[in-house]
C-alpha cells in the first residue's frame, strides 16, 4: 500500500491545456499515473495528447471516472478551482499552485468536508512505483518502507536521495505545501501513514512559521505508534522575514525552528541537524 495516490488513482488535471499543466500532467502519465482527463472551461471536447479535456471537473468525474484532481491554474483563479474540485465529488484534491491569497484559502479550507485537499503551494504526492501526482521528480525515490511528509520540495529530494543511496525507499512522499493555510497538515498525513501497513517509519520535514510541527509533536505522542524522525529548516532565519515560502516566517517569538525542535524532542521524536543526518537516523532507526 501507500497513501493518497496509487494504482487506483484516476487523475484529472485542472489547467491541463496550459504550459505547466500539460508538462507535468503528461510527465505524471509517463510515470504510470492513470491520467483520465483535463479540465479547462471553454475547451471541452479538445484533447491533450489523447487525454480528453472537459469544461468542468464534474464532467470529468461523471464521464471519465476521475477520483483525484490536480490544480495547476494561476493563483487568482485557483481557490475557485479547488472549490469546484471539492464539489465535484473527487476524493482527493492536490493543489500545486503557489501564491493563492491566504483568506481565499481560508474560506476554501472550510468547504472541504468529504474531499481531502493537499496543498496549495506543494509539490504533490508520489507513491514510488505506483503513481505520481504533481511535480516531484520520481527518479530520486525507490519503493520502500519510509513515508515522507514535508512542507518543502527540494529539501525532500535531498533527503529522499540520501535514503535511496543508503538503500532505503519510500511508501509515499507527500508535499503538504509551504503556505500558511493548507488543506492537510502534518497530522492528517501522519494519520494516513499510521494506518498504512507498508509504512514502517515516518520522516517529517518542517520549517519555521506557524505551529503545525508543535501540534504534530502532541499528536505523535498520543496517536502514532510508528517511529518518526524529523528535520526542521530555518534555525538561522531572522524574525519577521518571509523565507521564500509564504508560511515560512517567524512572528515575534513564535514559529522558531528551535521551539519546533524542542517540542518534537520532548515527545521523543529524533530531530536531525541536517538533511544528511536526518536520513542517517531514519535508516538507523528503521534497521533497529
Amino acid at each position, binding site marked *: 500500500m501507500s497513501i493518497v495516490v496509487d494504482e487506483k488513482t484516476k487523475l484529472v488535471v485542472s489547467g491541463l491545456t496550459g504550459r505547466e499543466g500539460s508538462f507535468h500532467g503528461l510527465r505524471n502519465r509517463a510515470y504510470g499515473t492513470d491520467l483520465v482527463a483535463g479540465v479547462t472551461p471553454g475547451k471541452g471536447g479538445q484533447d491533450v495528447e489523447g487525454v480528453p479535456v472537459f469544461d468542468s471537473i464534474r464532467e470529468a468525474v461523471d464521464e471519465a471516472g476521475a477520483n483525484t484532481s490536480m490544480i495547476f491554474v494561476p493563483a487568482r483563479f485557483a481557490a475557485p478551482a479547488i472549490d469546484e474540485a471539492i464539489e465535484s465529488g473527487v476524493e482527493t484534491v492536490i493543489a500545486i499552485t503557489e501564491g493563492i491569497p491566504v*483568506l481565499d484559502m*481560508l474560506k476554501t479550507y472550510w468547504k472541504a468536508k468529504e474531499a481531502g485537499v493537499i496543498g496549495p503551494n506543494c509539490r504533490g504526492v508520489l507513491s514510488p512505483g505506483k503513481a505520481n501526482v504533481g511535480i516531484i521528480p520520481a527518479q530520486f525515490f525507490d519503493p520502500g518502507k519510509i513515508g515522507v511528509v514535508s512542507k*518543502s520540495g527540494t*529539501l525532500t529530494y535531498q533527503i529522499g*536521495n540520501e535514503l535511496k543511496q543508503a538503500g532505503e525507499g519510500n511508501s509515499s512522499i507527500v508535499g503538504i505545501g509551504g503556505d500558511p493555510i493548507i488543506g492537510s497538515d502534518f497530522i492528517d498525513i501522519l494519520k494516513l501513514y499510521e494506518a498504512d501497513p507498508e509504512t514502517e517509519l515516518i520522516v517529517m520535514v518542517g520549517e519555521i512559521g506557524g505551529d503545525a510541527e508543535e501540534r504534530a509533536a502532541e499528536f505523535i505522542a498520543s496517536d502514532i505508534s510508528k517511529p518518526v524522525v524529523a528535520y526542521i529548516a*530555518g534555525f538561522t532565519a531572522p*524574525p519577521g522575514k518571509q523565507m521564500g515560502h509564504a508560511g515560512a516566517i517567524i512572528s515575534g*517569538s513564535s514559529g522558531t525552528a528551535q521551539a519546533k525542535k524542542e517540542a518534537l524532542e520532548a515527545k521523543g521524536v529524533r530531530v536531525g541537524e541536517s538533511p544528511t543526518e536526518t536520513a542517517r537516523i531514519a535508516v538507523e532507526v528503521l534497521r533497529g
Partner: protein
Amino acid sequence: MDLLEYQGKQLFAEHGIAVPSGEVASTVEEAVVAAERIGYPCAIKAQVLIGGRGKAGGIKIAADRAEAEGHAGAILDMDIVGPHGEGPFRVDQVWVEGGSDIAEEYYASVILDRGEKKLLAMVSAKGGMDIEAVAAEDPGALVKEHIDPTRPFTAAEARPIVAAAGLAEDALDDAAEVLAKLAETAQDEDATLIEVNPLIVTAERQVVALDAKVTIDGNALYRHEGLAELDAEAIDDPQEAMAREKGLTYVKLDGNVGILANGAGLCMSTLDVVAQAGGAPANFLDAGGGSKAEAIVDALTVIVSDEKVTAILFNIFGGITRCDEIAKGIVEASSQLDLGVPLVVRLDGTNSEEGLEILAGAGLSNLHQETTMLGAAQKVVELAGGAS
C-alpha cells in the same frame, strides 16, 4: 507586507475607525510645519516596521515648537532594534499627530490563526504594554475568540468579547463597533494581522486607535492597487530592491557567506548547515524551480553587490531544475561579472554530471566543486575566512 503605522491608520480611517489626525514628515522642517499646523501637545512617532518604538526612544511628545524640532531631529535617522532583535531599522519618516487625552488604554487585534484556520479576535483591558508579556503573566486578561472567516463579523458578535475583557461599561458599544470594523478591514484588505495597541478611550469617552500594526498578505496585493504601491516603495535595502526587480526571492542577512540554493526549504537548510559549520550566511536566495542560466547571472549579480560577501555557496539539488543550466549560468556569470570571490558549487540531481562537465571544461580558477551539502558548507566557511 507590513504597513507603517500611519499607513495602517489611513486604512483604519477608510473603514470608519477613529484615529487621531496627523501628517507624515521626512525632514525636521516638515515635522515642525506639521506640528505647528496640528497644535500642541503633539506626538512625534518614528515610522518603522517594528514594535517597542516607545522604549527605544522613537516616540516623543512635543509641548511646543522647540520640542517638536528637537524630537524630530532626534528621531529622524535613528536606528531602532526590535524587542526580538529585529532590524536595526533606520527612521526615514515620522508621523506627527495631535496629542490624545487618554482615559483608558486597551488592546485589540484580529489575526490569522494558522493552526485553527480561522481569524482570531483578541481584546484586553491591559493595553499600552507588550501583549505577549500580558498573556504570559495574566492569561485571563487577554480574551480570545475565533471569528468565522467565511462571513462578516458583526458588532453584536463583538460585544460579548469586549465585555468579557472588562472594558469600561460606557465604551462597550463603541469598542464592539471598532472590533467589528477591524475584522472587516482584515477581510476586505487581505490583512493577516491587525493590532491596535493601545486602543484608547479619550477623556471625552471616544474610542480611538492610537497605534496600528497591519500585515497585508503579499499574495493578495494584485487586488489592492494602493497597497501594492506602498509595497514597492517599502524596500530600502539595495540588494533586496535589486532582487525584487529581477524577480528573485532574496533576504539580506548580516554574514559574509553568499548563498544560492533552489527551493525555499533547501535554501533555509543550507543557511543552517553553513551556520553549523561556523559560518555566517550573508543572504537567503532561492533560485526557484526550473532556473535558467539568466536567472543565475541575476542571482550572482545581487549576491556580489553585497560588499560583505567573501565567498559564495551554490547548493543545487536539481529536480525540475537542470544542473547543466545552473552550470551554464555560473560560467556565463563568471565571464560577465567580476566575481572576485571564491565559489563553492555542489550540484546534485537532474543532469548533475553534464553540469559538472561544463564547470570542469570552463577552467574557472575561483571555483571549487564539492559532492555533498555538508562538505560544501565546510569548504565555503573555510574560504570565506573569519565570520564577520
